[in-house]
């Protein structure tokens, strides 16, 4: 008679009796073997498989031995996958929680209302809602930078005689503005703009205002003669100024402000940011130092020494 299935059974039984002492295990295995041999002797028509089936799974038998002796019943792990599913689930939860924390941290304040300008800033400046009285519409700004803009840009340029102008005010919505020293003593701009709007020019009490907020997107190079103060205001994008020669105020909601100072000029910096980073910049305490004010919502202010 082929006893291989019996030996295989007994091996499994021995292994399932793990918590017990070696001598006890050997004793139990021998007794079960003895039982099977007795059963086969008593009824030779039975098969080994039949006798073993009547005994039941070796793990179940071992479990009963352990329970009788007061050991905690060994539950066969029905599905090891469940363990991993739980781990995966918890892992995902923690990642989501972390993401939420980062989002909240980055996009606060949630809502900021600016009554004087008639605008509401959401999610820490990511979205800005302006009540455009003239057009009677609400203007959502901020997300255009996320969704690329394929519309072709048109060129606009102009230059203005700087006589009797002491200050330039340049306003834009989204885009990039580079302010550089003028080479011909004139205030000039050269822009590529998206076609919806025009750049409006107006002058009042020595201030030249260039309103480029009409176009959704601008890319401008503005040239300023010496000693003309600059006030650049934008929503999203980048403002860079190179070698400012007069008091300058740069305001941006989201993006980057870059200041490249003139090495031979003394500056006093007033750099403010809500979220992001500011380069360290040495302020001079000389009385005639040029005042550079930068006010940024989210992003980075860099000072290139």
């Amino acid at each position, binding site marked *: 008679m082929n006893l291989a299935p019996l030996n295989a059974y007994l091996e499994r039984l021995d292994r399932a009796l793990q918590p017990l002492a070696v001598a006890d295990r050997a*004793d*139990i295995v*021998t*007794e*079960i*073997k*003895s*039982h099977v*041999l*007795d*059963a086969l002797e*008593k009824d030779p028509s039975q098969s080994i498989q039949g006798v073993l089936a*009547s*005994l*039941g799974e070796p793990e*179940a*038998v071992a479990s*009963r*031995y352990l*329970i*009788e*002796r007061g050991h905690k019943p060994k539950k066969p792990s029905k599905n090891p996958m469940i363990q991993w599913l739980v781990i995966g689930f918890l892992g995902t939860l923690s990642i989501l929680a972390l993401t939420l924390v980062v989002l909240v941290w980055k996009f606060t304040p949630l809502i900021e209302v600016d009554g004087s300008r008639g605008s509401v800033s959401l999610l820490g400046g990511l979205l800005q809602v302006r009540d455009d009285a003239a057009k009677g519409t609400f203007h959502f700004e901020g997300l255009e930078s996320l969704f690329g803009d394929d519309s072709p840009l048109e060129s606009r340029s102009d230059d203005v005689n700087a006589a009797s102008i002491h200050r330039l005010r340049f306003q834009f919505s989204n885009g990039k503005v580079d302010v550089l020293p003028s080479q011909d003593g004139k205030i000039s701009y050269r822009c590529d703009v998206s076609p919806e709007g025009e750049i409006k020019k107006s002058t009042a009490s020595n201030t030249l205002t260039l309103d480029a907020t009409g176009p959704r997107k601008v890319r401008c190079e503005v040239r300023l003669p010496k000693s003309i103060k600059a006030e650049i205001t934008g929503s999203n994008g980048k403002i860079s100024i190179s070698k400012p020669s007069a008091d300058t105020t740069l305001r941006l909601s989201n993006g980057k402000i870059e200041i490249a100072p003139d090495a031979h000029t003394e500056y006093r910096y007033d750099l403010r940011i809500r979220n992001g980073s500011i380069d360290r910049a040495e302020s001079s305490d000389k009385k005639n130092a040029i005042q550079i004010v930068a006010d940024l919502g989210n992003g980075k202010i860099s000072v290139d020494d």
Partner: protein
Amino acid sequence: MPVDFDSWKTQVRKGYLELCILRLIQAHRRLYGFDLLEKLAVLGLPLKEGTLYPMLNRMTQEKTLQSVWETENLKGHPRKFYSLTRDGARLLSGMEEEFETMVSIFRSVQKTKEKA
């Protein structure tokens, strides 16, 4: 039959099963597992072998039973023979006494007339 009955049956059986096993082993002086299984079956107490052997194993641990390995003859396989220890014998008579009491209480409860 409601579930309650089956669980009650299991509970009650557990009690008198051990009693019957001890009684049988004592009556025959010593028995080995397979033999005991057959005798229980004849009595109308069929017990799964996967249940009996662990029970015998536990009772030996508790010193109610003692065991001895014996091989019938040169060609046979070893068999584990069980017999009652002195403690086992005392336990058995205690159990039998208790059981007698239970049965007589049961009889008198049966005889109780339903109050009108």
